[in-house]
């Protein structure tokens, strides 16, 4: 009897297969990677002419959008992706099947989260690449450590919040509604879809309270030509991290492996022959 594989090795196996599954699900790949790209091209064609000042000084709108949508892609790949995927896996009985194997639950979750993070990284690299090539975005090497740290804190926090959302939604059918209802309205007041110049005070306060705007603006600051290197926005990152910790606590406390009684999907029933 050989010893069981190490948790690190098992996490790598999980990550490899989760990525495989992600790429073989065209809808997921479209919404997380292609959609931000389409939005970038579209927003720039529509509003990309001028410049904008969202607090750090004037910079071209097209560069603003590059940073905004790169950050948003990272959030889609983690928060939205996990909040949608995990309840489906749960209702189809796939989580329950995994629970019956010797794979430690933490390794399974780590594999899922790592998948989201890798997809987020791809999204950010692609969008920033397009920004550099097509929209004169200049990446300042001195601010790249801050960009990287902001990315890491952001994806970790939003992945944790995605797992928390997955843990509390009753079933897979309500998951997309909850995930979108939580993230899309925020995107409008968080410097993602529209630059906010002098928003009303209360809107500013709401945006600052929820984690999306602190993350997006912290990330944008690392790309902004007028910020001083190293451009770490520690305050906002700390706030995002706090949300992440809250998300992690909720997911650990509320995570379920069993399909919800009312949420069993047609696919699950399909496995027993129709009567």
């Amino acid at each position, binding site marked *: 009897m050989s010893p069981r594989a190490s948790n690190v090795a098992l996490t790598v196996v999980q990550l490899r*297969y989760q990525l495989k599954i992600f790429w073989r699900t065209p809808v997921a790949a479209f919404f997380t990677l292609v959609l931000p790209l389409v939005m970038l091209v579209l927003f720039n064609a529509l509003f990309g002419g001028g410049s904008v000042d969202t607090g750090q000084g004037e910079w071209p709108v097209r560069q603003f959008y590059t940073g905004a949508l790169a950050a948003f892609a990272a959030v889609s790949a983690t928060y939205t992706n996990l909040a949608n995927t995990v309840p489906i896996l749960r209702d189809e009985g796939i989580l*329950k*099947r995994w629970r019956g*194997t*010797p*794979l430690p639950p933490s390794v399974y979750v780590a594999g899922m989260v790592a998948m989201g993070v890798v997809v987020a990284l791809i999204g950010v690299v692609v969008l920033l690449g397009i920004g550099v090539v097509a929209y004169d975005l200049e990446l300042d090497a001195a601010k790249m450590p801050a960009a990287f740290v902001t990315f890491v804190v952001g994806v970790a926090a939003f992945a944790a919040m995605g797992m928390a959302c997955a843990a509390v939604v009753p079933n897979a059918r309500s998951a997309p509604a909850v995930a979108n209802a939580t993230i899309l309205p925020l995107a409008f007041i968080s410097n993602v879809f529209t630059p906010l110049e002098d928003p009303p005070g209360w809107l500013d306060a709401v945006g600052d309270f929820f984690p999306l705007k602190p993350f997006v603006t912290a990330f944008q600051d690392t790309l902004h030509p007028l910020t001083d290197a190293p451009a770490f926005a520690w305050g906002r990152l700390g706030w995002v991290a706090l949300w992440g910790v809250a998300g992690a606590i909720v997911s650990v406390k509320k995570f379920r492996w069993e399909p919800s009684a009312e949420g069993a999907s047609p*696919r699950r029933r399909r*496995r*027993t022959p129709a*009567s």
Partner: protein
Amino acid sequence: MPVIEIANLVKRYGELTAVNGVSLEINEGEVFALLGPNGAGKSTVVEILEGHRDRTSGDVSVLGLDPGKAGAEYRDQIGIVLQSSGIEDELSVLEALDVYGASYSTRRDPMEVLELVGLADRAQDRVSQLSGGQQRRIDLALGIIGTPKVLFLDEPTTGFDPSARRQSWELIDGLRDLGTTILLTTHYMDEAQHLADRVGVIVGGEIAVIGTPAELMDATGDTVVRFQVPHGANTDGLRPLGAVVEGIAVSCRTATPTKTLHELTSWALAQGVELFDLTVSRPSLEDVYLQLAVSDAQPSPAPDMPETRGQQ
């Protein structure tokens, strides 16, 4: 030596008592079949043993461990085929076996396992491309990929065509020969009769009867006479003789077969009808089962309609 020990197991879902004081011991290398009508509590018992559900009260031990508290070391030694659960559709059959098998210390070769369940030629196909019965065979493959010491099979052959069922019987017989302890539930009496060393019938959350198939069948000492009459024959005279007439099929359960046969053949001669397909046999497991299960005022079990969520 008992590998599975259950003592006074009780499980309540809110008001409903699904399992009501079940006690059971299953020995090493034994194949034990749990029978019972829909909703009798079979899956509940099995899933408590698998560590999927907690129990309200009672003692449970498998391989010396409490499944309610056990972790990876326990799951490394057991194999599970749930009554219904999904697989990642996007993976190929071989990939599914590879990723699900990765965490076992004694993992079998995935191709070998696919050979055993008759899916070797589908190894490269996506799970979603397989038929329902073929997907069920993947469930079976995933149940044995870790070379389990104890295997739990919750209606493993539901949806199988007859030859796939025979093949899985061979597979299970092979596992028995290797010393695997197997707890299976089924609605197919021929399956229980073929596979099980012992059978337990659970009705309304309680064990109604337990024993080897032969013991159960012999318990009554009765004999069953069966035959068919021609279409349109007047069967009125059969009922007073204790016969049950269903269309042209007649069966008669009796403790005095010589006398009964004499009466039946006399009736046939008087009527001028032939008794086609005449057999005299002891009651099948199904006869015994139906008597137990039906007397509990449950709707009679429908072998081809396993649990769907609708009946909860």
